[in-house]
């Protein structure tokens, strides 16, 4: 299943599974922040972000504007790559492998095949083994997570409703994935075959998860995280780190909030630290109650 690009002349292999998953491991216990300008990227880097997600519009604005949301302009991504020295991620539409080829050629460090953008294929996700650059994909359940890993994803994140400032969906996904991983650990071999069928995922990966008690790639949380306590909640529910989208730069004091979320992600099990960093942060982003969204405005149902 690995896509080793062997360059025998140099004895070095790029884009191997270890190199891709290893990159994901390096981001653990860090915060990945959505940014739309080089200035925001600098603020994120200064606040201790472990990586930035470069995009033209944060999810809250994508919701407001409507229309088709696509990969960002390469000029915009280049501007952010030039502005910071930390890793830069960017989003492609589900199934849009040409957008992914473009981002890889720009030197992006990680690609998010994201339901926040408008899907480009109704049946197929990108064959991620075919790329040197690692991918992160969203999942609402263990089956979805394992199908994405089977396609080559090097990191899984929850698929909370981005741009709402409402963490309830991300909570649901984290709990579902955690519960299903725990259940796999209790199954014997014949039951694991049945589970693989139920999850529509390869048996080998199902068995690996049952043995490890965790996914074979890092599990992060994304979608609706707006406060330090939200970030800590995701960590306590088993996320190895968090993506923060609209929550930072749609708030009153982005630099201070970014810093506070970084600290809460590190000391997620220490309420005193979370209390301290939650003081005087200014206005959080205005949230959206999910029952105000009709089905066409829900992102978590995108992807399969």
């Amino acid at each position, binding site marked *: 299943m690995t896509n080793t690009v062997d360059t025998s002349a140099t004895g070095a292999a790029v884009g191997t599974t270890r190199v891709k998953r*290893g990159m994901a491991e390096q981001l653990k216990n*860090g915060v990945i922040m959505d940014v739309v300008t080089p200035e925001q990227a600098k603020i994120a880097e200064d606040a201790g972000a*472990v990586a930035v997600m470069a995009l033209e519009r944060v999810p809250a604005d994508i919701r407001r504007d409507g229309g088709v949301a696509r990969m960002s302009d390469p000029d915009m991504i280049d501007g952010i790559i030039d502005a910071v020295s930390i890793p830069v991620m960017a989003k492609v539409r589900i199934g849009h492998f040409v957008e992914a080829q473009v981002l890889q050629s720009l030197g992006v460090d990680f690609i998010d095949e994201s339901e926040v953008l408008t899907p480009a294929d109704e049946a197929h996700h990108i064959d991620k083994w075919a790329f040197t650059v*690692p991918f992160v994909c969203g999942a609402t359940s263990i089956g979805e997570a394992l199908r994405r890993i089977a396609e080559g994803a090097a990191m899984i994140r929850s698929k909370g409703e981005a741009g709402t400032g409402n963490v309830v969906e991300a909570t649901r996904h984290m709990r579902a994935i955690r519960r299903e991983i725990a259940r796999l650990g209790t199954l014997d071999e014949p039951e694991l075959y049945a589970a693989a069928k139920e999850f529509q995922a390869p048996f080998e990966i199902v068995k690996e998860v049952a043995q490890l008690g965790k996914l074979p790639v890092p599990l992060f949380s994304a979608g609706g995280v707006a406060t330090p306590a939200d970030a800590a909640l995701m960590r306590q529910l088993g996320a190895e780190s968090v993506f923060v989208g609209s929550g930072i730069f749609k708030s009153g004091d982005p630099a201070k909030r970014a810093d506070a979320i970084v600290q809460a992600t590190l000391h997620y099990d220490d309420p005193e630290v979370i209390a301290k960093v939650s003081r005087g942060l200014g206005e959080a982003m205005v949230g959206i109650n999910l029952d105000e969204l009709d089905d066409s405005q829900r992102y978590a149902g995108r992807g399969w």
Partner: protein
Amino acid sequence: MSATPTIGVLALQGDTAEHLRVLGGLGVAAAPVRRPEDLDRVQGLVLPGGESTTMSKLAVRYALMEPLRKHIGEGMPAYGTCAGMIMLADRILDGAQGQQTVGGLDITVRRNAFGRQTESFEGAVDIDGLAGGPFEAVFIRAPWVEAVGADVRVLGQVAHGERAGRIVAVRQGGLLATSFHPELTGDPRIHRLFVDMVKGQA
């Protein structure tokens, strides 16, 4: 040094869990280090891979930077991988503005020297004094060592290709550093070397 030391793994950001697992597999007591007082309970310290700018900022913010400098300055053995190597270096090139390091290793490290993630790679590296053949090394947005002081022993260099000769493993007394990530492969030999250093047996 005690025959059964506890080795700490800096747990500010990065792949702390992978180091803890390798050390556990060697039968060594290992514990995460997040606060200054955690340092008093360990006899050696691993600085993991991760994002060095984030790690450095968190170390300053949580008042860990000075205790780290003190313990390492007083001779606590330490092993840094990738970002950890940067943290142990006395001098960095291509760092973020104002990026601080713990220091102790008399080396100059160039951050992200091997390029962005699409250029990250794995390949064999010969490690001086390590029995069992070349080490399968995984490099991720890795740094290299651009210059070493007189007391620093070069343990490994890239063998082939346009980066041949680049220094990727060094030791100076009780301080060990690699550009690559032994915690991501199944090979515990470099961790075993470090454990022996902590025990005063290597």
